[in-house]
């Protein structure tokens, strides 16, 4: 149900962060919000999945511990892409466009015509 991908992205976003440096809290909250958004998008497909529900609870706990607001900027898995919550490609497509593939997998096509 792709919850693993959400978790992997979160690890990728936070693994380089150092709590000793300025801006750590802000960046960590951004990553948490991105993680939360990712789990939200998988909520239907992951219903009943223990890993998913553990992740949701974990995110909630971490956001409380770090005093992160629910609304605010989020991290992108591609640092070159500025996150725009209303641009699917900026948070989901970025990883798929790596390697210069103009027609990334992960998209589906459906067509209807004729008689």
């Amino acid at each position, binding site marked *: 149900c792709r919850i693993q991908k959400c978790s992997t992205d979160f690890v990728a976003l936070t693994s380089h962060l150092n709590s000793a440096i300025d801006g750590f809290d802000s960046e960590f909250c951004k990553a948490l919000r991105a993680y939360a958004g990712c789990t939200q998008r998988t909520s239907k497909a992951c219903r009943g999945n223990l890993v998913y529900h553990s992740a949701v609870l974990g995110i909630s706990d971490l956001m409380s511990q770090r005093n992160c607001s629910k609304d605010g900027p989020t991290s992108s898995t591609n640092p070159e892409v500025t996150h725009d919550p209303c641009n699917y490609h900026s948070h989901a497509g970025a990883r798929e466009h790596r390697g210069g593939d103009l027609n990334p997998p992960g998209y589906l096509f459906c067509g209807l015509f004729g*008689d």
Partner: protein
Amino acid sequence: PHLRTFKDHFQTCKVEGAWPLIDNNYLSVQVTNVPVVPGSSATATNKITIIFKAHRECTDQKVYQAVTDDLPAAFVDGSTSGGDGDTKSLLILERESGRYVEMHARYIGTTVFVRQLGRYLTLAIRMPEDLAMSYEESQDLQLCVNGCPLSERIDDGQGQVSAILGHSVPRTSLAPAWPGYTLEAANAQCHEKMPVKDIYFQSCVFDLLTTGDANFTAAAHSALEDVEALHPRKERWHIFPSGSQGTPHGRGHWAVS
């Protein structure tokens, strides 16, 4: 009509009346099909309804509806975009007045083409897999996801329009099977627009023979163009029927190349 599903299965279906193509948490697409000629179970699409569901701060719900001879470049509320004025996370573009519109839903990475060719409508959709597969179990009737029910199929159960052609019209007959076209004439006309003898070519021949309406040649051709514009995998653009350049992989499956 001819349906190419999300799984690249190709089917020719009856599906008369209203049927859902897509019904997930982000998008709902429904088509209405009507018989094209008396005495035939073949139908074509004369109405398309698309609902872009409300999505947090990106857009409120927007409904698009097209019927034959009324292909608007606006949603039913008269707007041409969704979301904030600057953001425009959902946008309608008119490519050919009254004939061809595109809808770009940036917030869900989805693109929809709607065309009118002759008296009927065509549809092409590109959508991210994770969003397309985000639906409840109860929403299992989605032709784009699961194809047409077997009882609604008018191919031979393996998607073979060619078998229909072979059985319904005498291949060597010089007399038209339906007013207007012999098999040879249909082949020739379709070959002009579609030199690759794939399933789109075969569908074109099928449509000419069943209706005698030359507009279906343009419909098949533009359907292939839409595939080339929206399908993410070039190696899958063409689908070949068995006995030509590919083999079927079981019920409703086609070889892609």
